[in-house]
């Protein structure tokens, strides 16, 4: 533990020491910083260097919960936050399941989450990297312009302590580069512009693959030039890895233990049922170092762990934090999520992935007579209802005819229900890609999706 991390732990410890008889207290203290460089036409458009810190305190007394936070670690302010949290307790209702996480003896998997090389990386080099990425992306295709090229890194350290005996502290850092592109085609009324993006993530800048980021940003933008609106019909779709990862993100909200105990999940009474095609195994594993969101402990200080949620199509379990687990009559799966010091722990998957298959995207497409390769989904947040399962989203991609990708299409929607889509999975690709989100992606084939266009 670094000196500054242990300082955060001491702050959290001191708050917990102030607990009164019959009172449970949890203090979460964090500090973090970021650098962000944006390049436009060879110049730095902006450079952000910043640091912030704060504390959130949860108090539970007689089953009632109160919470308060402040974006400062001033000693006097911390006293006020504790007073506010105590004051707030009286306005909540008593809930027999309300309680803090308790140590469960599971040891955290050792992870290397902190990289000194990144912490010491020179500012000038960060700017150079973003400039290099812009140059690479701009030089590939005369139709492509670069909208912006970015370098970003962030570090954070946090400590949590509680009267239940939790005491955990740690720090981590990471970085990524991203580039947004515009591809232009045609003139006047026929003028058309499509967008693309590419990125690369790493524990330190030496791990970036700038060439790949630039190529993907070019390909994504140019592939859709000349796209037309397709006719409505039912098709087999192949989701691109990035799209699959978004789809898994939606599925994860139906496997959330809190949604389940509150009767808001479409899978609430379905443990043991066949909810997906037989070849589908879905795992949440934050202990996998390849996952972008890998971590050693969850938001309540319990060890993060590997949880198999769906095995060979059968629903095995949900993910839980301490509260949802108590209500469900089980134990926490180490899936407490925390947005920072300003919020209390929620429940969520941390690093979700399907067990990959064996074939490449090209091999998969070669077997499809009439289908659609989906490269973008748009409006997922508004078009998917994780409670009813209704699924409808804007999409863009390429038609598949007789085993080959053909014309680009856009301005249409694809629709089904989450329940059906899981059962309609035909194949999981072998092309697993760990993306900068809470889920990994790979090509995913789903039959019988309604495509709505003309």
């Amino acid at each position: 533990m670094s000196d500054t991390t242990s300082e955060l732990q001491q702050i959290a410890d001191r708050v917990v020491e102030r607990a009164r008889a019959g009172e449970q207290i949890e203090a979460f203290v964090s500090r973090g910083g970021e650098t962000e460089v944006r390049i436009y036409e060879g110049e730095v458009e902006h450079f952000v260097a910043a640091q912030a810190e704060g504390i959130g305190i949860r108090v539970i007394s007689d089953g009632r919960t109160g919470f308060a936070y402040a974006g400062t670690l001033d000693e006097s302010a911390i006293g006020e936050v504790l007073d506010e949290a105590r004051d707030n307790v009286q306005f909540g209702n008593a809930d027999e399941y309300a309680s803090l996480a308790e140590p469960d003896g599971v040891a955290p998997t050792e992870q290397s989450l902190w990289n000194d090389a990144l912490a010491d990386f020179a500012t000038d080099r960060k700017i150079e990297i973003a400039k290099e990425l812009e140059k690479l992306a701009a030089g590939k295709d005369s139709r492509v312009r670069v909208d912006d090229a970015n370098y970003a890194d962030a570090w954070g350290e946090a400590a949590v302590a509680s009267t239940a005996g939790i005491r955990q502290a740690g720090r981590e850092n990471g970085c990524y580069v991203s580039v947004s592109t515009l591809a232009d085609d045609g003139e006047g009324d026929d003028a058309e512009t499509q967008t693309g993006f590419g990125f690369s993530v790493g524990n330190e800048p030496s791990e970036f693959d700038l060439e790949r980021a630039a190529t993907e940003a070019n390909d994504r933008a140019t592939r859709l030039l000349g796209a037309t609106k397709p006719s409505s019909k039912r098709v087999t779709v192949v989701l691109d890895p990035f799209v699959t990862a978004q789809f898994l993100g939606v599925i994860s909200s139906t496997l959330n233990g809190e949604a389940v105990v509150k009767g808001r999940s479409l899978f609430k009474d379905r443990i043991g049922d066949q909810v997906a095609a037989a070849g589908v195994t879905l795992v949440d594993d934050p202990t996998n170092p390849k996952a972008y969101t890998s971590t050693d402990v969850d938001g309540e200080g319990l060890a993060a762990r590997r949880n198999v949620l769906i095995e060979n199509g059968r629903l095995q379990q949900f993910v839980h934090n301490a509260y949802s687990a108590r209500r469900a009559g089980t134990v926490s799966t180490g899936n407490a999520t925390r947005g920072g010091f300003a919020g209390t722990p929620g429940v969520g998957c941390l690093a979700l992935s399907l067990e990959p298959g064996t074939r490449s995207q090209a091999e998969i497409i070669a077997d499809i007579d009439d289908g659609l390769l989906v490269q973008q989904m748009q409006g997922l947040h508004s078009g998917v209802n994780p409670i009813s399962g209704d699924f409808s989203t804007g999409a863009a991609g390429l038609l598949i005819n007789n085993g080959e990708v053909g014309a680009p299409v856009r301005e249409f929607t694809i629709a089904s229900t989450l329940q059906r889509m899981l059962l309609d999975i035909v194949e999981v690709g072998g092309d697993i890609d760990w993306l900068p989100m809470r889920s990994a992606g790979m090509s995913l084939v789903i039959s019988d999706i309604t495509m709505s266009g003309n």
Partner: protein
Amino acid sequence: MIEQDVLERVLSSATKTGADFAEVYAEDKRSTSAGLDDGLVEQVTSGRDRGAGIRVIAGDTTGFAYTSDLSEAGLLAAAGAASAAARGGGGGVKTVGLTKAAAHRPNTIIHDPDSIEKARKVELLNRMNDAARAYGEQIVQVSAGYGDSRKRVLVANTDGVLADDEIVRTLLRINAVADGDGGMQTGYQSMGHTVGFEIFDTVDVEEMAREAARQAITKLQARPAPSGEMPVVIKHGTGGVLFHEACGHGLEADHIQKGASVYAGKVGELVANPLVTLVDDGTMPGEWGTLGIDDEGQRTQRNVLIEDGILTDYMWDFLRARKDGRPQSGNGRRQSYQHLPMVRMTNTFVMNGPDNPDDIVSSTPNGVYVAKLGGGSVNTASGDFVFGMTEAYLIEDGKITEPLRDGNLIGNGPKVLQDIDMLANDFSMGSPGTCGKDGQGVPVGDGQPTLRVKALTVGGTAA
């Protein structure tokens, strides 16, 4: 929050490496929220966010740093970091004299929510829970949330601007889940205003709850939405988000200057059906997107973006206005002191047209009637947008008939503006929204009268 002489010294210090411009944006925000779920008030939360963001511009480069330390030493340290980030070269110290403009406060606050007992806020949630559950036995779950905030902001810059504002926001939302033979369905209602707790003297919170319950129960009988292109009628007060997505974002000057908008270079051209007049107005008293000053210290104003179908102007912040040598439009906004400002909307709406809303439905032989929209998003470069319909019905033989399950609508901004062929005279503002752009969320309002789009793609599952 910060003394004027301190601000002047910080701004001078920020420009001492020769930068052209420096700005201090400080805020002090207190908020309270409470959530009810599954019959219980789970928790009351209090928060305090206080800090300053310092922006320094040298040539075309912006340096930015923020700090939660509002002492002179803390501000000077952030100013040093921001000016180093902007890497201004050489030059002497700029003397800064600030002139404070008279306060401009479109929002009148009678009861500061901070002065209201928390028990009264919690009571609102319990009343909504009871009303929603009493509406029908199919209602199996209710969650509700209350939130208020009081934010003091102070903006000072080397152009001499010194402005402050106090923004009070009050929000209430409810989500009801109904369970039936065909599975679960949801209903949602929300209201939010830049006013104090007095809003609850006029808002009927039980009626809000019953409305959410009604939507959820109605949808238990819903059939899959049709798919394909068809006429779509959108009820007043729910379709403003369509214009926010379909053209609002494309009229933001940052997208225009980078050539990343379908509306670039089109001022003076007919871009919409002549029925359409589109306005962005940050001065509407009490609305969710209303501000006295924008987050760069400029007074907000009413900006007509499209008039009788002709594109009249874009929306501007400091940086983009400076580059084009024109005045700002009061559209510089940021999520908090930890964020850089950029061009954003405030309250965006379409003005009334000539038609009677009933005539619009009766003159539509077949199509979809959308009574409530969810969120949406747009690709400003292509103009393609999507938004969710959360309460919709079939129109058959000119009459609103069966309820439909949730689905998406998809279209292209410039095309949908041309395809609006009927516009009613029943304007109303819609629900409070949060606009996301470049990772930042800000409160926005929208509104519109009942209207018809002659062809829009409905993305349902019915064959």
